[in-house]
């Protein structure tokens, strides 16, 4: 998406030359891709943002596609949930930037914990407000934003690179200069999207998904359902603008087993099983094939449970 960094206007990215088969005859500006094609654009060593929050509206189908690829050595930026647990357990993360990792209804993420206690990756652990303003700084092409957070806490000790700024006005107050969280790519999951990359959330919370898209060089949106347009939509639900999006993937159930209300809630039974199952056993049963195989395996597991 070089047209963004050079300030070029008007391009909708119709000539990306991504070598996808079957793209002939698409309407101009059609950014639809498969999950595997999205991952095909990611490279080892990238800084990758992942939207959603804890076990809520995580782009899990894209994360699963990532697990099927060879992409590794990632710096992951996330308000972490099972996205971080899965990638950490699979050894794909070399560095993590996060204020927390949780499964919500299971407070601690066991696969993340195990990887962290093994020392599998390095960590930038920052406060939630620092995370929000770091994304906002990146989206605004600022090097940092001042935040009243972190000072007096060990966030300063465990992030020795953090600097403070002094207000240039009469108050002279000191703040943390929360550094911009600029990313090579971001993955988010929303309820609806059109083929050009506009995306709509229908749940109660946007989380930071639009900021992730704005703070990344390229963002990929997966959605529960592709739509032809948003006629009649409540305008405020149109969270993500196509100018921030490089690719759109239709993945019904693509947030599973995290929530994507109102399309579906969190799969609590599956989540508890995930939390209680050793990583290799979980991976063997649920991550051996493609997304269709995953869905079949989940359905079979639920059937076994008598649901």
């Amino acid at each position, binding site marked *: 998406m070089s047209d963004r960094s050079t300030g070029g206007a008007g391009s909708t990215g119709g000539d990306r030359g991504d070598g996808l088969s079957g793209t002939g005859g698409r309407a101009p500006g059609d950014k639809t891709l498969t999950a595997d094609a999205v991952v095909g654009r990611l490279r080892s060593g990238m800084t990758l943002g992942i939207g959603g929050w804890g076990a809520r509206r995580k782009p899990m189908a894209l994360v699963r596609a990532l697990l099927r690829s060879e992409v590794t050595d990632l710096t992951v930026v996330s308000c972490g949930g099972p996205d971080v647990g899965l990638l950490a357990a699979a050894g794909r993360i070399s560095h993590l930037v996060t204020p927390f990792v*949780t499964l919500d209804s299971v407070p601690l993420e066991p696969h993340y914990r195990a990887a962290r206690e093994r020392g599998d990756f390095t960590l930038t652990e920052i*406060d939630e*407000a620092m995370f*929000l303003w770091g994304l906002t700084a990146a989206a605004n092409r600022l090097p940092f934003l001042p935040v009243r957070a972190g*000072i*007096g*806490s060990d966030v300063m000790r465990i992030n020795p690179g953090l600097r403070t700024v002094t207000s240039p006005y009469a108050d002279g107050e000191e*703040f943390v200069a929360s550094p911009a969280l600029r990313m090579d790519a971001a993955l988010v999951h929303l309820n609806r999207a059109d083929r050009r990359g506009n995306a709509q959330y229908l749940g109660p919370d946007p989380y930071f998904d639009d900021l992730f898209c704005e703070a990344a060089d390229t963002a990929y949106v997966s959605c529960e359902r592709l739509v032809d347009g948003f006629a009649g939509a409540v305008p405020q639900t149109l969270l993500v603008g196509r100018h921030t999006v490089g690719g759109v993937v239709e993945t019904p159930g693509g947030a599973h087993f995290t929530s994507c209300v109102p399309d579906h809630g969190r799969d609590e039974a599956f989540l508890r099983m995930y939390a209680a199952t050793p990583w290799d056993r979980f991976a063997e049963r649920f991550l051996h094939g493609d997304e269709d195989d995953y869905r079949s395996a989940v359905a079979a597991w639920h059937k076994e449970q008598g649901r």
Partner: protein
Amino acid sequence: MSGAPAHGPASRAEYCVIACAETWRGAGEVLAGPMGLVPALGARLARHTFAPELLLTDGEALLVGPDGEVEGWLPYRRHLTLVTGGRRLVMMGASQIDRYGNQNISCVGDWARPRRQLLGVRGAPVNTLNNPVGYWVPRHSRRVFVPRVDLVCGVGHDSARAAGPAATRFHDLRRVVSDLGVLDFATPDGSMRLASLHPGVTVEQVREATGFPLAVPAEVPYTREPDAAELRLIREVLDPDGLRDREIGPR
């Protein structure tokens, strides 16, 4: 809320609910940020009775009234603005807390290679620098009340003082409610003090369960009794299934 008095004396969990509710007395038109079931019951009890101006959330992105009716929108990013604007009084959990009120929810052991990875610093640093903060500890023990926390997430009095005005300007640690009693910081150096005992608990029991020297006044009062209307609310309206007893470990 009137009617027949609730039957039976108050349980330990019910004293805890009362003690948490008292955290929001006089707080004004601010968001009650309860983390944990007992603080949530306390916040709703306060909203129903002596603090009708409190704001409550549904635990997701909505502001709701005492009976769940929607009155506003509070997604995470607006929640953070409310925190930094100071219009919130939160009761956080604590995996570890020390005598100056430093709190840890991140990890146990050395941060670089933790023995036990926990949640992460989450919003504790921003909370403690911007809005009034209390803590809820469902099981008072030396594992939680430690001489020094392994990682300062929530900023305590000594840490805030050492960091200077940037940390102390809006710093306001209120109290710690545990299953044994209520602790505050009403001492000259801002260290923890036993403010009240839940009925049935002794000073010795609290000292035994606390891993640092605790300031103890000559006379320690008991946590106040819930009145009949409050007990009815807790038992019949707010928590008819008695989930409150499950958050508090057996003694």
